[in-house]
């Protein structure tokens, strides 16, 4: 018993010293906002909807709809400690056709110096099966998420490109690249949730009275590029989750994001 007390006391002392170390780390207090600007690109150029884009396979696509979910943001400080954004307000739908959706503002971030950002491209399995009353905002199938939810196969579409391409043999040369799949409810199935970690080229200073903006480039060419080239002729013009084509695209687009710069 006495021995236990001893260990508890040691643990307590260690704990307090660690906590105090953390507090002294930057001496910063308070919370501030952090804005992430998702800038969809085609290689080095700005992405413009309804224009021809040549993908790695040499085929061209003309995109009419580009949307994806980004969620579960975790911010990493320069000392390696992490801040996880609370669940409420941690799901965002990036929609190229809605300017306001391209800027994601995370509120009440503890002041500090951050060096990298982690997030999920898609919606985690817990949220994908949550109670309907929790499906609000970006995840509301009757609202912002209306064309990002599969009604026939309960789950969100994580990443969606609708386009036309001469390479498509579908009616109207239609292309529908809809990637989803959180791993299945009772039977394991495609899991296309992808974790992304972006290092910032410069320290992101979150402060109580400042609003730094992280400018993230998202190169849609990468979704068709590597590690495996996506060819409309061979991989298909239309898929909905399909583990082959969908997973191939998910394995590609996981690398489409980079932090270009940070506005202080």
């Amino acid at each position, binding site marked *: 018993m006495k021995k236990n007390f001893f260990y508890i006391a040691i643990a307590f002392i260690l704990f307090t010293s660690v906590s105090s170390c953390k507090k002294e780390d930057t001496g910063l207090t308070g919370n501030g906002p952090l804005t992430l600007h998702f800038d969809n690109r085609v290689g080095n150029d700005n992405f413009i909807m309804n224009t021809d884009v040549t993908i790695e396979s040499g085929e061209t696509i003309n995109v009419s709809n580009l949307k994806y979910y980004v969620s579960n943001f975790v911010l990493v400080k320069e000392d390696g400690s992490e801040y996880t954004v609370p669940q409420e307000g941690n799901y965002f739908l990036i929609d190229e056709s809605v300017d306001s959706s391209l800027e994601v503002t995370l509120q009440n971030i503890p002041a500090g110096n951050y060096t990298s950002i982690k997030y999920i491209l898609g919606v985690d399995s817990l949220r994908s*099966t949550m*109670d*309907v*009353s929790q*499906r*609000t905002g970006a995840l*509301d*199938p*009757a*609202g912002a998420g*209306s*064309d990002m*939810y599969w*009604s*026939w*196969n*309960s789950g969100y579409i994580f990443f969606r490109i609708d386009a036309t391409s001469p390479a498509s043999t579908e009616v109207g040369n239609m292309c529908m690249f809809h990637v989803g799949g959180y791993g*299945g*409810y*009772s*039977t*394991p*199935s*495609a899991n296309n949730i992808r974790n992304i970690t972006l290092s910032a080229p410069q320290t992101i200073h979150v402060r109580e009275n400042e609003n730094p903006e992280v400018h993230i480039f998202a190169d849609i060419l990468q979704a068709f590029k590597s590690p495996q080239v996506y060819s409309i002729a061979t991989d298909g013009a239309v898929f909905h*989750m*399909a*583990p082959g084509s969908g997973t191939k695209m998910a394995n590609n687009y996981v690398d489409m994001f980079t932090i270009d710069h940070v506005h202080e």
Partner: protein
Amino acid sequence: MYMNKILKQPGAYNRPVAISKMKTLFLLFCVGLVTISSCNKTGNTKEEITFSSPSNFPAPKYNFNNNPVTTQGFELGRKLFYDVSLSRDNSTSCGTCHSSFSSFTHHGHAVSHGIDNKLGIRNAPPVMNMAWLDEFMWDGGINQLDMLPIAPIENPVEMDLEFADAVNKIRNNPAYPPLFKSAFGSEEVSGPRLLQALSQFMNMLVSANSKFDKWKRGEDGVTLTPEENEGYQLFAQKKCSSCHSTDLFTDQKFHNNGIKNSFLIDSGRTHITNRAEDIGKFKTPSLRNLQYTRPFMHDGSISTLEGVLDHYSSEVKISATLDTVLNNNGALGIPLTSDEKAKIIMFLNTLNDPGFVTDRRFAEQ
């Protein structure tokens, strides 16, 4: 319960006027209560709607904490269930393919018949005992009752309306906001509330008062005849109950029961899981209310119970994923004599629940 709510209003105790008003309200409330109770006895006024789980059923899977059934929510759900405005051209409601008198199936239709006279590829399953399920549709693609209605509303051969547009149509119908207020406390019409109301209605569609249930629960001195009882024994001996298990008569799993040996038109469970081992597998349906739900099977291809038993005894088709219960080293199906078939059918008929299909509360008002 209502009285408590009134008295708990902040500040009510500080104002004598309020107290006297409260007293009057309370008296009126009591008078109202007595009137309602007496009406109930004569059947002139509707009863309170509450959900309860029959004692011979397993525990429900639906989480009622998030969405308890109330009379107002049930009534709103019922109105929505029978509202054709949830379809693109105001032609088709949930009730179109799920009618109360046929245990919420599409009576006489092999496959469902939806908007623009389009046909689906599957037989409309009965909407009953939903609270005990957590995977819906023949392929189990939907894993929450609350999310289920979006599928038929959006399906191009059923109701063909974007769910967001459906919610907007309901929101803009002046009849609805007051009903949402009485069900959920405010007039806000939202997707989640609409879905929760439909769940309240569907959760109340409990069929558990068949002859079999009454016998099982020892109610009203109901007994099975010797033939029905023999049929029940055969049902277990012949392994029917290996899939049609519990008093829900479904294991809620997916099986290939040998109706077809090619699944190009409908791959079944594989449509959801993309796994080769799931090709041609469909969810085990309940065997309740078969009298009202013909034709049978996922594609509605068998129209009589005799035909169903003929299928299992001598017409099973082989394919890679055929259930092992139906394939004994190449001997297909379950051998049954005509006497055994007749007795099993007599047993199956004890699972019909006439009170369920004639319950006025569940019908279009």
